[in-house]
């Protein structure tokens, strides 16, 4: 059977539905392991995406990767899992490698598709500049799935919940404080992203970027120089050394498109570039380009989107 680890600490995100759908498409029975205090009603909805059962350990808060690893390993071994699926997010990146050592199971990190006919799995390499096919040589396999790689699909109905405890040991990591800005869409999960760079000339001009993002329901992001000089917070920096994202739509305003920036966004499905400089390298990576002044183009685009949204209702 396929075991899927789902992070339900902040409710169920799209990544949860993607990983369960992925597990289902691997063609075997899917069991979900999760932890924390999400309601059983909520967890049972994972059945709609193909889970036959959700196992939950209420005693584990999920802050310690070592503890989570023990939990997932014990459930995997107890149920004879042949494949274990994670989302390639912060928890997947911490737990899947540990589990690989614990179970002596090969890990395909950052999978972007279902296995090919020979069982090998496609991943991005060289910061998205190339792709590779990885083969797992061990009998048990671990796959961490890059968010936004497959679409969630409903295939069933609510499933049963089973409680477990006592297999995870204690946590070595102690949480002192947690800071989460309210009301923002977390960048790595966003399907639509509006991003801006030095072309905006100053932090006081970000209002129009936020307005555009709001009209689309998009997250906001920025280039490295803008984060480095403190115009925008570091967690908004996308690129080689910041966050790598792969939204459906990436709108880049006043960003020239240096190779290091492209490395963080070249997984985007559609790229729109707004720049005054017709020679900006970003246009080569774009699907749609607008040569123009951000201060004129962005408000017009926001108005056009608001008009479109109103016509859809």
């Amino acid at each position, binding site marked *: 059977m396929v075991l899927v680890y789902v*992070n339900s600490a*902040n409710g169920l995100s799209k990544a949860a539905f993607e990983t369960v759908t992925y597990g289902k498409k691997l063609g075997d029975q899917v069991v979900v392991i999760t932890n924390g205090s999400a309601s059983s009603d909520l967890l049972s909805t994972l059945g709609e995406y193909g889970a036959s059962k959700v196992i939950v350990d209420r005693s584990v808060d999920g802050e*310690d*990767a*070592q503890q989570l690893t023990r939990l997932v390993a014990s459930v995997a071994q107890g149920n004879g899992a042949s494949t274990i699926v994670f989302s390639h997010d*912060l928890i997947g990146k*911490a*737990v899947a*490698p*540990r589990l*690989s*050592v*614990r179970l*002596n199971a*090969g*890990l395909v*990190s*950052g999978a972007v598709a279902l296995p090919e006919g020979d069982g090998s799995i496609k991943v991005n*390499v*060289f*910061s998205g*500049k*190339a*792709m*590779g096919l*990885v*083969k797992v*040589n*061990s009998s048990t396999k671990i796959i961490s799935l890059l968010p936004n790689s497959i679409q969630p699909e409903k295939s069933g109905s609510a499933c049963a919940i089973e409680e477990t405890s006592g297999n995870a040991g204690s946590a070595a*990591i102690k*949480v*002192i404080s*947690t*800071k*989460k800005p309210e009301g*923002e869409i*977390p960048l790595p999960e966003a399907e639509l992203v509006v991003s801006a760079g030095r072309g905006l000339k100053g932090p006081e001009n970000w209002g129009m970027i936020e307005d555009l993002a709001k009209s689309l329901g998009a997250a906001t992001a920025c280039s490295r120089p803008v984060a480095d000089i403190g115009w925008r917070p570091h*967690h908004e920096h996308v690129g*080689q*050394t910041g966050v790598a994202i792969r939204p459906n*739509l990436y709108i880049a305003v006043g960003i020239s498109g240096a190779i290091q920036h492209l490395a963080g966004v*070249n997984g985007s*499905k*559609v790229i*729109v*570039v707004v720049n005054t400089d017709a020679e900006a390298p970003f246009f*080569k*990576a774009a*699907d*749609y*380009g*607008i*040569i*123009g002044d951000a201060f004129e*183009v962005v408000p*017009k*685009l926001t*108005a056009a*989107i608001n*008009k479109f949204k109103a016509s859809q209702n």
Partner: protein
Amino acid sequence: MKILVCISKSPDTTSKIAFTDGNTKFDENGVQYIVNPYDEWYALVRALEIKEAGGGQVTIITVGNAADEAVIRKALAIGADEAVRIDADPKDAHYTAMQIANYAKSNGFDLVLTGKETINYNGSQVGGMIAEAMDLPFVSLATKLDVNGSTLTLEREIVGGVQVVEVSTPAVVSCAKGMAEQRIPNMRGIMAARTKPLQVVAPVAVEELTSFVSYAMPNAKSAVKMISPDNMDELVTLLHNEAKVI
């Protein structure tokens, strides 16, 4: 504090990426190798700052062949005290991690640091694997690390925010942006690096759990469609009807 910093080589960020031998091997022709930026800028520099503030020793370790010693010397020039090279091809992340864990276990380190990922394989695997092999706690994607006796206080990224956590040494930490600032080696450092100890260690037998079958370049992008700045309605229509993203 005895700190082990794991170093990987990676192609310079501006390298042309190409493959040879029927797309089964990375084409190293003309490629300049650097210390993987996350390992260098964040893990190594923070280790040096901790040593400068509270004393101790910084050892760097890499799994690679003799040709990788140029990259090792660069890390020594930045300020590491000594280097260890496990004399083997780093076959996959698991193989690499098991080699490092094997060395670390028998040499009593308080802290093992890695970068958050390499810029060539982007797997984010080695740190967690070392931690599991050593049965140690692992704090991933730390953006800040302070040492107070045997207690580490760290800031780490969580979904949509940051978190402050504490953990006792020994521990494994993967380092992300914010941890430290890049240091440029000075001439004295470069001279000193030539004579710093570099120990070559034979690898232990580890099975290869994964292997790359082949590589491919992404499909070429179709040419950009230019839109007049006065016609944003057209862009919205294209995004809706053609690209189908809104």
